[in-house]
């Protein structure tokens, strides 16, 4: 049997997803037995031109991590789409925009100004910003930021998804095996390497099931009990509205889940689902108590949509408000 | 505090129809009482407050020279005046009569525990006998009466009372808080059932 041709790409992301692949360790040797890596700019010396030179469908599988943040990300995404038989959105950024997606709340101009001009410790006397013309000699052309961060499937057709920020290495290996043994997925067909239920199924913590709380604490305000359900202690935990697959890593480290594995299957908007789970535990019996509970939730978008804002109904609505929807390759369809 | 030459106590247990008699046996109480100190006779009877009952007491006082009487029947709030008058008729100082409340405070509240009620009745009678052995004659106090009345409230009831008193020749002050008398009635339109006007 011919070896499988595998590509890995890193778009708008932190690099954690590539590390997740490296974390496979000895499995990488097993992988090398069955697959040829034809493109992995982070780890090996490939150029974009190499990909451009490939024929359509030359690559069997592309693991694409990172959001569509820059013009270049969009370009490479389209290119890899055409060259790959299966395009896999790998990790939270590619799947749902992840933390970079939160910049959509204030827009990319604000993000640039904040990062390059205002951030403490930044010295940028000439006010240079990536993607804008500069008059410096020998300046590199940096790709411009797109107005909105997009998930991969919002710009090209995606065949399967690997969740997580970053994906757990065991899950990565499971996903790769699934791809190698079960054949290539059809477009948008499935999540790879995850368990069917939400995280609570794997959470070892005790749930009384009837405890409601008057208000919510942030994690720096108290030390949680390590045995009891976070929500029942008054810490917001996204576990009920988050797909299992991470082996409850954060929970075991006494940190509430923040939702990086995205919503359970069939759930369109993860933020809404987390919101529902949180409201369910309000103890308040009157409006004043409810207002107090609501006030205890600071930064609602960061709390409910930390990983999924870019693909959320809320972001979609905010874009309507801007009334200048950018053209996208694939219109947002109900995912999954 | 003179104790008479020799105490002679008569005890009367009222059956009050079935009110007492259906829960406890008055005869048993009487039998018990007959052995109490200084008791010379103890009887039970269907209705002590009725004429025959009272006659019985009056007759016994005279015949047996009773100088103390205990009536075990209803509440003192009900019939103490009756029995005081009864013994006074027979020449006994009315304060030499004591009552034991074996109806309101016994058979009517312990109907489900007849044994307990019987024991309680006996002890209440014994207590009354004990008290009556220590009582002494008292003379009522006589005070003068100011022959005037005050009616507080000038509504329909107050006006009615004031008019009747005055018509009987008693000077009456009719004190009203409001500016005019008549009370609620003065505010009414027509009044039932005759549908005439109120004023």
């Amino acid at each position, binding site marked *: 049997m011919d070896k499988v041709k595998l590509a890995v790409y890193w778009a708008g992301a932190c690099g954690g997803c590539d590390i997740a692949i490296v974390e496979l360790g000895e499995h990488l040797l097993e992988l090398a037995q069955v697959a040829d890596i034809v493109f992995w700019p982070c780890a090996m010396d490939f150029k974009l031109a190499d990909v451009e030179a490939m024929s359509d469908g030359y690559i069997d599988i592309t693991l694409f991590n990172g959001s569509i943040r820059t013009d270049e990300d969009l370009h490479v995404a389209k290119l890899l789409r055409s060259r790959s038989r299966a395009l896999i959105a790998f990790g939270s950024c590619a799947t749902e925009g992840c933390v970079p997606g939160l910049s959509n709340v204030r827009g990319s101009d604000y993000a640039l100004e904040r990062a390059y001009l205002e951030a403490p410790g930044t010295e940028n006397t000439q006010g240079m910003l990536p993607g804008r013309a500069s008059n410096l000699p020998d300046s590199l052309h940096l790709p411009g930021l797109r107005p909105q961060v997009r998930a991969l499937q919002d710009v090209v057709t995606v065949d399967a998804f690997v969740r997580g920020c970053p994906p757990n290495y065991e899950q990565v290996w499971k996903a790769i095996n699934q791809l190698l043994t079960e054949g290539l997925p059809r477009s948008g067909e499935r999540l790879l390497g995850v368990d069917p239920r939400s995280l609570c199924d794997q959470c070892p913590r005790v749930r009384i099931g009837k405890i409601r709380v008057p208000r919510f604490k942030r994690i720096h305000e108290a030390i949680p009990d390590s045995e009891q359900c976070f929500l029942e202690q008054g810490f917001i935990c996204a576990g009920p509205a988050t797909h299992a697959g991470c082996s409850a890593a954060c929970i075991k480290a006494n940190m509430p889940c923040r939702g990086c594995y995205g919503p359970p299957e069939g759930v369109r908007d993860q933020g809404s689902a987390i919101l529902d789970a949180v409201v369910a535990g309000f103890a308040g019996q009157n409006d004043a108590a409810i207002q107090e509970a609501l006030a205890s939730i600071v930064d609602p978008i960061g709390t409910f949509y930390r990983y999924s804002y870019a693909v959320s109904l809320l972001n979609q609505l905010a874009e309507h408000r801007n009334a200048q929807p950018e053209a996208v390759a694939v219109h947002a369809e109900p995912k999954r | 505090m003179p104790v008479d030459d020799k105490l002679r106590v008569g005890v009367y247990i009222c059956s009050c129809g079935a009110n007492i008699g259906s829960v406890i046996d008055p005869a048993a109480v009487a039998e018990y009482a007959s052995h109490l100190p200084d008791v010379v006779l103890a009887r039970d009877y269907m209705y002590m407050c009725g004429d025959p009952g009272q006659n019985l007491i009056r007759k016994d006082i005279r015949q047996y020279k009773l100088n103390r009487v205990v009536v075990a029947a209803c509440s003192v709030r009900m019939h103490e005046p009756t029995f005081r008058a009864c013994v006074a008729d027979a020449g006994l100082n009315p304060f030499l009569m004591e009552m034991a409340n074996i*109806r309101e405070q016994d058979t009517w509240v312990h109907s489900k525990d007849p044994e307990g009620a019987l024991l*309680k009745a006996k002890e209440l009678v014994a207590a009354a006998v004990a008290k009556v052995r220590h009582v002494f004659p008292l003379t009522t106090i006589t005070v003068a009466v100011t022959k005037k*009345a005050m009616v507080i409230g000038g509504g329909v009831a107050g006006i009615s009372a004031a008019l009747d008193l005055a018509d009987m020749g008693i000077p009456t002050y009719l004190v009203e808080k409001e500016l005019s008398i008549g009370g609620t009635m003065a505010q009414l339109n027509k009044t039932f059932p005759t549908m005439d006007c109120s004023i």
Partner: protein
Amino acid sequence: MVDAARQPLIDVMAYSDVERVDGYIGNFRAQVRRNPRYVLADRCNGCGACSRVCPIEVPNSFELDIAPRKAIDVPHGQAVPLIYQIDIDNCIKCYQCVTACGHLDAIDFSQKAEVVDLDIGAIVVATGFDSFDATKIPEFGYSRYPNVITAMEMERLANSAGPTIGHLVRPSDGKFPHSLAIIQCVGSRDKRFNEYCSGFCCMYSIKNALYLKQAHPEMDICIFYMDIRTPAKGYEEFYNRARQMGIRFIQGRPSQVTEDPVTHNLFVEVEDQALGQVIEMEAEMVCLAAAAIPRGDSEQVASMLTLSRSPSGFYMEYHPKLRPVDSPTDGIFLAGAIQGPKDIPASVAQGSAAASRAARVLSKDTWEIEPIVARVDAERCISAQGKKCGICARACPYGAITVEQGYAAVVTPAKCHGCGGCVAECPQDAIRQDHFTDAQVVAQLAVLLKDSPQEKILAFMCHWCSYGGADNAGTSHFEYPASSRGVRVMCSARMDQDFILDAFRRGAGMVLVSGCHPQDCHYITGQQVAARRFERIPRTLERMGINPERFRVEWISAAEGDKYARVITEMDAKLKSMDRGQIIAETARALPEINNRLKRWRSVPYMADLLTEPELEAVR
């Protein structure tokens, strides 16, 4: 009204307050304050010239504040006495009235309140009732919706002498209401407010309906009721007439009244019990048959006259059947709705009855009162020995005791009401109460606690309240355990600490001391004297080694039979939960200390025998 004013023997003292009443039957003295009208009664001829020129209008409480009066005015045209009055708080002192009054010169801005003392032999209390505040039932919408009115407001609106000259109009738009819903039992027969039936509301609502239907046959009138109560003579016929005339009677208590915010019409929702279905009536006006309730000042008046109030707040009669117009205080009689809701015929009848009961006293030159009074044993009184004391005088609510150092205390028998508070308070046991002497009480204790005292509850009861409460438990047939043994004294103030200690000395399992609620006390402050004394007792008992839970203090009114039964039941359960051996051990432990404390008591006549020898030699 007019008859009363014309009767020469009646002194109508309107606009006056009774501030204080002292004394006793045949010899009361009342302090009455005549409030200033700023118009001289003997000069005002009621012409009204002053009112016509007065520029100030204020709400008229006689019209339930739905119509104004002038700052100088009479409450209504037929007022008796017809003397004008200045509402001094609202008068702007323009003195136009003075000018208008002219040569009559009846207006006197310098008039002051006048306090007069009245000597009287008997008192009739006929202070009447108030109407229930319908805003307390928000679901009926009173005060939220303009067209929801009370029955008293209806009386004024339908009254030809009222503010609309008898034209019934809707407060929202001044138009005639073509449909009227009348809701019965507003605030009565309602556990949230008053459990009693107000008695006459059925009849007045039918009367209002009938009156309106006669005047406006086309009017749609609906009475919503739980039960129609028309038991008096001629009333049922009256009710039948109303039904014949087409007034609709629907059995069912409405759940709520809501309003169309535009038309201000009202929607009454009710389950018609006959239909078994919920129906809705759109009415242009709703009238609430608000209950009769005790007057707001009834508590204050009760304590001034030492009267008792039933749980409902109306004044309690001496006996509900046999002495229905006598108050518990001799010489004071009750008439009208203050004793319980009453209609006019019943109020008139009770007024006459009260007059008759009062005349029973007033027709005599003298009156005999019970000789149950306090008497001082001069030899025991330490004041006679030149020591400073006076505790008895301080305990007496009637000022019947005078103490002069060097002489024994003196009780004025006619002033003494016989509560026995001084007797119990005297540290020398130098005062006795005739008919309730120490020996007379202790003789009973000795007998009652002779056999199995550990299984018994010894209950001290005051004559007026808790003994009445125990009677009430009986008449209501509230069962309770037969372990209690009652001892009656006149007032809780008579319940000597020595009685309680003696009861424990004799091994009583439990001791209850019970009396009136403070406001009900028949002897003004007797209950307070007792309460202060009882507060100290648990600690005393504890020091002696007696479990203070074996002692209980309860204030139980003559109407609280349920409470009496409950208290005994609870105490019995507590007693049964205790170890009998433990009680005996506690008694043994406390015995020397109690004997020591009761040492002086032995020198009181007849007490020595009672404190040593067993009293009851029952032969079995």
